[in-house]
């Protein structure tokens, strides 16, 4: 692979340009006659570059990215399933893409009805009573969920102080709890990798507002005592929160609402196939049971006189959590996905994600340590413990996979497993891909045992070798040094 691409700034050359813009209404008028000079900047050191050179630059950068279309991407907890092409086409239809969010309701009935129907479908998929589509990501949904819980308890007279979170939880969970003004109480998992009922019991006092969990949990195990957990939590007047990051294996099988959850957030970019975009945009809708409906953010899409309106008159609402109506462009793709799948498709999706994960687990457990040897759901966690003897860590295995064209699994998470390697194949990968992965993982295990020094050098086939993260953090370089061109006037300000 070609080495450095060079930064866009290094490709700039004075006087080149790509842009073309329409003529303004008063072409003869100087800007200084419209805006006082004291507000005007003197210089903007942006690159000057032709259109083709821009295209070449970004095309070359694109070639340096692993991606689902090009590579197996078994990144645990992230559900890197195939992103159907039709959804992209649908979301870019002009009559979705080019609507201003302030258009009066009667001109946007199509999108409002899509959003409304999406809320209803998500309710049916999760057994909740109402959904809010506005959160822009899972973490944003968690934050909203915590605020709803706060509002619920406040209404009952006391907001309470604490939220219980398992030690195996996603980092966003305790962080969202803190952001909403709650204290985090962390409880350990039991020897089977599930919620420790006794630990839960003793942590549950009258200051606990909610228990926040994911099911299946981050070890990929279904919490088999979920009904008892719900019963215990509710009996203390606390609520049960569902982090929906791991909903995929349960599609068509069972629903968080039926398990006793009061609030759920979903990750449309995981379970419902919308692309991750290199880190976003995502979408993290929040669903609630009846007792929390009054607190949902405004505006609420409601029917009135045969049409749909945006109702902002909700006195108990927690308010707004984002401008406008959420990541609508993402929601459209997830809507389209659910419509394509229907009941049968969703169920097949859930089931095959579980089959694929268990198949890999069974095939790999001989070569790698498997801390919880039980039937898993959509993902499972291996440990590089066996390989430690020859000095090989999870990170070395990850880098070895990169050289073999496979995006590594999630490593070092969950934190409760030493040298964790978390594998989530998803349902969209074929048996051939899974078998190839198994062979590659075995090959790497062999290297680790016999010639660890080779693995320590990986990756060798990428545009860069292992990068110095210590240097990156010690000597911060987070912005290009725009040097002042000599032939230009004084800088801005």
């Amino acid at each position, binding site marked *: 692979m070609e080495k450095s691409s060079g930064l866009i700034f290094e490709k700039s050359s004075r006087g080149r340009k790509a842009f073309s813009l329409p003529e303004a209404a008063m072409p003869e008028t100087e800007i200084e006659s419209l805006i006082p000079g004291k507000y005007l900047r003197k210089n903007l050191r942006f690159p000057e570059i032709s259109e083709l050179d821009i295209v070449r630059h970004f095309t070359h950068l694109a070639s340096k990215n692993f991606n689902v279309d090009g590579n197996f991407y078994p990144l645990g907890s992230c559900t890197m399933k195939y992103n159907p092409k039709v959804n992209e086409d649908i979301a870019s239809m002009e009559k979705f893409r080019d609507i201003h969010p302030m258009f009066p309701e009667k001109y946007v009935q199509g999108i409002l009805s899509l959003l409304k129907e999406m809320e209803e479908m998500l309710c049916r998929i999760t057994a909740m009573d109402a959904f809010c589509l506005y959160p822009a990501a899972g973490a944003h949904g968690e934050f909203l969920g915590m605020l709803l819980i706060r509002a619920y308890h406040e209404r009952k007279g006391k907001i309470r102080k604490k939220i219980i979170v398992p030690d195996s939880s996603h980092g966003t969970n305790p962080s969202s709890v803190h952001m909403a003004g709650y204290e985090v109480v962390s409880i350990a998992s039991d020897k089977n990798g599930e919620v420790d009922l006794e630990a839960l019991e003793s942590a549950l006092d009258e200051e606990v507002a909610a228990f926040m969990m994911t099911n299946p949990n981050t070890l990929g195990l279904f919490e088999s005592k979920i009904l008892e957990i719900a019963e215990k939590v509710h009996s203390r007047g606390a609520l049960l929160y569902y982090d929906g990051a791991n909903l995929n294996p349960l599609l068509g099988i069972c629903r968080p609402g039926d398990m006793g959850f009061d609030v759920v957030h979903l990750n449309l970019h995981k379970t419902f196939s919308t692309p991750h975009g290199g880190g976003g945009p995502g979408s993290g809708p929040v669903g609630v049971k009846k007792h929390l409906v009054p607190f949902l953010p405004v505006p609420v899409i409601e029917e009135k006189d045969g049409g749909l309106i945006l109702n902002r008159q909700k006195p108990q609402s927690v308010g707004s959590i984002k401008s406008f109506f959420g990541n609508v462009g993402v929601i459209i793709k997830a809507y389209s996905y659910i419509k394509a799948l229907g009941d049968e498709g969703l169920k097949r999706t859930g089931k095959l994600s579980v089959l694929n994960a268990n198949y890999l687990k069974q095939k790999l457990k001989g070569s790698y340590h498997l801390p919880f040897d039980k039937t898993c759901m959509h993902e499972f966690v291996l440990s590089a413990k066996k390989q430690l003897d020859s000095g090989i860590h999870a990170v070395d295995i990850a880098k070895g996979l990169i050289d073999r064209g496979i995006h590594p699994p999630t490593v*070092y998470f969950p934190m409760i497993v030493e040298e964790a390697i978390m594998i989530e194949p998803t349902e969209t990968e074929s048996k051939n891909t899974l078998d190839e992965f198994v062979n590659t993982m075995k090959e790497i295990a062999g290297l680790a045992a016999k010639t660890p020094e080779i693995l320590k050098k990986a990756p060798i086939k990428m545009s860069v070798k292992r990068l110095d*993260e*210590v240097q990156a*953090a*010690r000597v911060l370089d987070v912005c290009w040094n725009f040097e002042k061109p000599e032939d230009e006037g004084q800088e801005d300000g």
Partner: protein
Amino acid sequence: MSIPKDFKYTFSHEWIKIEDDKALIGVTDYAQDKLGDVVFVELPKVGTEIEAGHEAVVIESVKTAADVYTPLSGKITKVNTLLDKDPSFINSGPYGKGWIFEIEIRDKRELEKLIDAQVYENKISED
């Protein structure tokens, strides 16, 4: 693993060098080894009064952040500003150039809770 005999220690891996009514505090060789390459040290402000057992300093490596708790109460009289420029002193000289702060001891009775080198060595060999 180096554990100087003339220092005092805590179970949370801080060392304490006592000089009259002042104490110099840092983290042990064992702690710096566990942390890996230190990339940043968030130092306390000189002049702040701090209570024993409270978080005084944050030491960051690439993938972890560790809180350093002050084992003694009192006023912070000096901090090692060298660490702002080069935090790697924590790694290269945990008991020397990597010292973190100096405190004016408010209550000498708190010294009784500190452990000596032998006890600390036993503790880390258990881990």
